């Protein structure tokens, strides 16, 4: 697993991000996105620094962070595989695709393989509904998932 930065380091890097973005109107979401970009998740140690920097209570910051599905409390695996589970993909067998991938990786949704190679997540629509079933691997979009494409994905996350 990757080394976790010390909380003092988290605090100083977080403070720099806040300094850069606090001039925006409604800066909290852009700041949280930037923090997740920096650390791969939103560390607990960053929350009091944000609260202080934006003159919010810690509870308010905690409330916002936990409201949104995107913000992670812990780092993800080296790869993140999102499988669309919304209706258009359901109509093209996304259930079966998800079941197969879960079985091959030995994990369920919201879980990471023990070797830390991949985190599997459901997503509700990637806007690729005329190319169902679809997925996103580390930001790259994949449509019309079939056995061949599933094999390619698994080869990539395991390499």
């Amino acid at each position, binding site marked *: 697993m990757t080394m976790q930065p010390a909380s003092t380091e988290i605090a100083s890097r977080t403070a720099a991000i806040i300094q850069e973005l606090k001039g*925006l*109107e*409604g*800066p*909290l*979401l*852009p700041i*949280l*996105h930037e923090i997740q970009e920096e650390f791969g998740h939103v560390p607990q140690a960053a929350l009091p620094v944000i609260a202080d920097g*934006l003159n919010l209570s810690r509870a308010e910051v905690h*409330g*916002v962070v936990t*409201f*949104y*599905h*995107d*913000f992670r409390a812990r780092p993800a695996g080296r790869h993140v595989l999102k499988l669309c589970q*919304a*209706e*258009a*993909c*359901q*109509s*093209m067998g996304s259930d079966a695709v998800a079941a197969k991938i879960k079985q091959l990786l030995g994990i369920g949704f919201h879980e990471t393989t023990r070797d830390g190679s991949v985190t599997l997540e459901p*997503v*509700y*629509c*990637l*806007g*690729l*509904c*005329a*190319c*169902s079933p*679809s997925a*996103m691997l580390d*930001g*790259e*979009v*994949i*449509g*019309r998932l079939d056995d061949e494409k599933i094999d390619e994905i698994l080869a990539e996350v395991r390499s």
Partner: protein
Amino acid sequence: MIPRIYIPGDSGALALGAEKVAKAVRAELAERGIEAKIVRNGSRGAYFLEPMVEVATEKGRVAYGPVKPSDVKSLFDSGFLTGGHHKRWLGAPDKIPFLAKQTRLTFARCGINDPLSLDAYKSLGGLKGLQNAVAMAPADIVKQVTDSGLRGRGGAGFPTGIKWKTVLDTTSERKYIVCNADEGDSATFADRMIMEGDPFVLIEGMAIAGIATGATKGFVYIRSEYPHAVATMNKAVEIARKAGVLGVNVLGSPNAFDMEIRVGAGAYVCGEETSLLNSLEGKRGVVRAKPPLPAIQGLFGKPTVINNVISLASVPIIMDKGAAFYKDFGMGRSRGTIPIQIAGNVRNGGLFETAFGLTLGEIVDDIGGGTSTGRPVKAVQVGGPLGAYFPRALFDTPFDYEEFAKRDGLIGHAGITVFDDTADMLKQARFAMEFCAIESCGKCTPCRIGSTRGVETIDRLAAGIEPEKNLALVTDLCNTMKFGSLCALGGFTPYPVMSSITHFPEDFKPAPARVAAE
């Protein structure tokens, strides 16, 4: 003339391998020592033909598709740079039946050129609407939009001009234009296509909205599931700013308008306008009670126009060609065109912009070509996860806000998901409740608790436990959610649930009977 090859950079095309095709084309050009320009255009929306590669020839564009990387060598062998014949040959793109049958107003330019070329945008009529607007009084712009009959394309169908008039008439030192690009409904991708394929039309529409209402700042709130759209919009805003389309003097006029792109964080409910405003302000994306209307107290408590991408992107053509031109299309109180997104288990999936009024059957059977699996169509969900499931018996319903409402449905953001006869409608009804439970903001009880109880009750139905009692319970629960929820998430979840129960009662029979029937 250096040959020009168009390979879409739209994420739908990328999902089908456009990047690999581009790589193969580059390699083939290098190997054959041919000089050519590769343009990464948007998508024209015929996804069953993507990746669709086009070449500019002396006789106009010639399209090939769907192109696989393995086709590239033989394309060159067949002389595709001059429009030569090949098994993937489609001819002139605007003659392809799926595209030829459309009426493209909002999507007139989408997929034709490099989306980030402002010159290409202007060469196809771009900025004319804004040029007209800067010379007009705000009230006259609002009147044009009102007269055009344009209604909110996000789903609610509220007249856009009336919303703008409220903001114009509300006095404030600061006002905002907010574009709702949190396109979370399954089966919809029109917003994504515009942002990736013709971003300047959205920027132009927002600038017009700003001038019309006295707002000087705009935000586009794009969902995080659309990284390509975010990237394209950010670049386009930068280009528009440098070119003076945005800034303190829009197109050299005394009007100031500038905008920012903001990214959501995976909450479906933020597509609801008040929850989106809270999210933009940096709060939890919980729904606000209305009144006050956002037009009076919106973003940071200031008067705010909040419109869907397609509503705003339809404004430039109205300001260019006039209200009467736009209003001439459509039927009843549904005026203009609507980009219908045909998705799911369908042969010809893609975006089909047309005047209101086609029947559901024409859309699914004639244009969509039936299912991609070749099996009979069982159900069609119209309007995303909060839309009703329609059986074949209702395929005569015309695509129109009021006609769909009459049949206990909605057109929403005009996405259509086709299901073949293997679909289990009890499972679909359960999913609707489950999705509502996952995405509920938690503010109101019918949505937060009702959806969870809904999943449990449908599970009991599936297990054959007291079916009559549980069916009555689901119906009663849907009634409570429909009338007691604060917003459309809890309020419209009953549409997919009740339409499944009403139109497909056989799928809700107790489990032993269902097995025996198969």
